[in-house]
């Protein structure tokens, strides 16, 4: 799971639940080709952090205090198009999905899915593919 340049792909995580960010850090540090570069408790500093570090992937929770993560995502898409964001949330709602895609998300993954699915999604997005988890598709079809 590497970037075209052959180096590791960097991942930034935004989630207000420290248990989750900690779990993700643990998981990502074990994964080949991915490099954890840190986490944010909300989206307040996300733009600044991305512009500074240019991560390949941002994992973005939606249910957080602070600014609306989807609005920040829209700004992020405009400012740093090379960084690809995957929404990683327990809230699987059609209106959230539509807003996230319009704002520039490359994927929408449920926290209820197994961790493997998250890795698959990160891999697909890095390859230029789009990532939905099964629960998201079920919601879209409902």
């Amino acid at each position, binding site marked *: 799971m590497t970037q075209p340049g052959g180096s590791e792909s960097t991942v930034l995580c935004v989630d207000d*639940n420290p*248990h*989750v960010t*900690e*779990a*993700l850090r*643990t*998981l990502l540090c074990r994964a080949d080709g991915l490099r954890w570069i840190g986490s944010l408790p909300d989206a307040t500093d996300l733009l600044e952090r991305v512009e500074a570090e240019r991560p390949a992937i941002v994992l973005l929770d939606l*249910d957080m205090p602070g600014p609306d993560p989807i609005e920040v995502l829209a700004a992020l898409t405009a400012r740093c198009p090379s960084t690809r964001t995957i929404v990683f949330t*327990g*809230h*699987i709602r*059609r209106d959230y*999905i*539509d807003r996230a*895609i*319009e704002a*520039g998300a*490359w994927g929408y993954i*449920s*926290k*209820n899915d197994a*961790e493997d699915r998250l890795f698959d999604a990160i891999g*697909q997005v890095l390859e*230029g*593919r*789009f*990532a*939905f988890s099964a629960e998201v*598709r*079920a*919601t*879209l*079809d*409902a």
Partner: protein
Amino acid sequence: MTAIPTDRQELAPHLPEADSAAWKEGEAAARRLLSAVPAAIYTCDAAGRVTFYNETAVEMWGRRPRLGHDLWCGSWKIFTLDGDPLPLDRCPMAVALKEGRSIRGEEIIVERPDGVRRRIRPHPEPIRDASGAVVGAVNMLIDVTEQRQLEEAQARLAAIVECSDDAIVSKTLDGRITSWNSGAERIFGYTPEEVVGRSITLLIPNDRLTEEQTILQHIRRGERVEHYETVRVAKDGRQLDISVTVSPVRDGTGTIIGASKVARDITQRKAAQEALRRSERDLSDFFETATIGMHWVSPEGVILRANRAELDMLGYSAEDYVGRHITEFHADEATITEILARLHRGEDFVDFPARLRRKDGSLRHVLINSSVRREEGRFVHTRCFTRDVTPEVQAKAALQESEERLRALLTLLPVGVYACDAEGKITYFNRRAAALWGREPALNDQHERFCAAFGAYLPDGTPMPPDAGAMAIATREGKPFRDFEAIFESPDGRRLHVSVNVDPVFDADGRVTGAINVFQDITEQVRAREALHSQQVALEQAVQQRTRELEESHRRLRLSERMASLGTLSAGLGHDLGNLLLPVRVSLDALSSAQLPEASRADLDRIRTSAEYLQQLASGLRMLALDPQRTGNPDPTDLRDWWNEAHAIVRNALPAGIDLEADLPEHCPLLMSRPALTQAVFNLVQNAGDALRPQGRGHVRISARRERDRVHLTVADDGPGMSAEVRDHCMEPFFTTKTRAISTGLGLVLVAGLVRDVGGAVHLQTAPGEGAAFTLDLPAAAAPAAMPTRSRRLALVDVSDPRLRALVTSELGDLALEVIAGADERTIDLAVLDYPPNGDAARHYLLLGIDGEHPPHVTSIGQKPRAGALRRALRSALQHLDTAEAPAP
């Protein structure tokens, strides 16, 4: 009368000798005297022999009689006044000699040898001797021929004057009336007795008295006054128009002694003249002011006279028109040739059509009527009446054109149109009419009347003969028909319902001359109407049913509000559980790779099992939270897959001590969403748990079996079962056997609603002491194995934005399509393109091979797609492809 010797030879012997010389002297003197008398004189002796005659007698007779030989007379022939021949021995001389008496007053006609006849009055006088014996006679013949002629002329003149219609009056030079004929009496009313001797001024009106003086002056000068028209007064005071001719009257010496006046009453003539003048004025006025054009033409074709209407019609002045030849104004060579030929033959024209050229060059259509005027058989001129019929001709032409257009239109009309005359003979039909009849009738055929349908029936099937149909009645009674329904049968037995509209056609006098029929095929409408009727019946039943359902749904609405708040709670729980379980799972994974004692590893496994159970519970909670109503057209739910996800939450619905058992077949998809199925089964299981709760233990069993296209999913318990009453009412809203504290009374109602939404049904089998079994009768989904019977579909994605291209590609992949990004040799099934199109359209066509045999289905994607809508659009495109390819049934 003195005896005069007329014949010396006869008379001499009777004379004494002594006196003989004196006698002879006297006789000679007498002879000379008698010869000189201007009257015809001759003498006869007693025997009637002529003894003497003078020269005047010779001239009268035209001959000389032989003396002493010719008897009685010297005439050649004599006649009575009546013209009868008179023998000479009966002439007056013979009578006088024979009877010895004088004859007076008789007249005879003497004819001379040269044929000249004279009227003669003879005066024979016997001559007696001294003894009184007749010794001869002397006869003087007076020629009264001229005198008698004059007398006759005067008598004729007097008669003429008397019987003249004119007044003939004579007067003296001082104006005194001297004669007055019956004409004067008749004209002026006076009798001769009343006016003779009075002044002529009696007849003259006071204002004209000087006229008489003037007339008399002329007369005195010997001048005639001729045909002097003036006015005179009749006895009754009427003023009379008279024409007077006055002539001087002269006496035998030529002296003017008076005047004769002939007066003629010209009152009537004057009136007639006035009438004639008026008539001429009338005629002229009529000619000039007639609104119809008139002109007179000479036999040679020259216009002699034309009236205002004619000039106005053609725009010419009289100078332009009169005196010209008619050929100059006619537009048609053949017409003018005919006109001139007829003129030459002196024939009349009756409504002869022609075209005349106006001064401005335009043409007028006219009808010419003419009559030849002849005098003594000679053609004088012909009088032509020129009626401008241009508007009629134009109107007729327009009508013809309009008729042709109408006919063309009628031919094309999508309704049947035909017409018949008053007898019902068909005079016209259009193509559609023939198509609806299934045949073409003969036009104007006596045997094809009113309708050309092979058979006609009323909607109830009663046969309708042509002469009893709408067309026949309309023609006979002059009534229109509207939307009259009938059935027409064609020769091949096809029957069509038709709607017939008939209008009778009237002439200017209001008589029916035929009818027009417009009819159309309403077979489909009739069928639709019949179907509609049965639908209405069904609808009424459905409305009643729906009313009942509405009442129920009203109650369900209140329930769903409650369920919505429960759903929000469930969703929050599920989300939070998911958030918590992620780090648990990650931590467990980390621990499992560490070096741990066996006992700790067993603990770790128990923790992992609990975490997995919690994970399933969270998943079940989310399914309970989702609104099943929003499930439109769900993917099939596989029973086994669903149960793996849902069993944890379902099991939670049961109190402790109650066993849950599931026996579900493999590969059993059904058409109900996972949340709906979860909520239905959860409620049934919860209901069973409630029933089992009092006895503290028992079994709940979930089983399913497939029967053709249905799946029967049963939730059964071995609880106390239900009474018949409970069984009958348990599916009704708010019915509950439990206390309100633990039941909404809506659980089973919710189940029934969810099942009905997918076209299923709920059946309950129960009896007291025998437990209860709820069976959901649900629609099965087709086996997924049927899908890949053909090669994968090929989709072309030409979307410029890489992220959207990735989204589309991902979705197409999820729908099992193979995605390519550029031209390919294979046939493309589906193309997803930018909207608005990116780049030139030609590129798309090139890529798609759009003009090929199998053009792809094209779907466009905008700049801000909705993921759900995109999925539906792609799925719909695929269904379209499947439908298009499906073989015809």
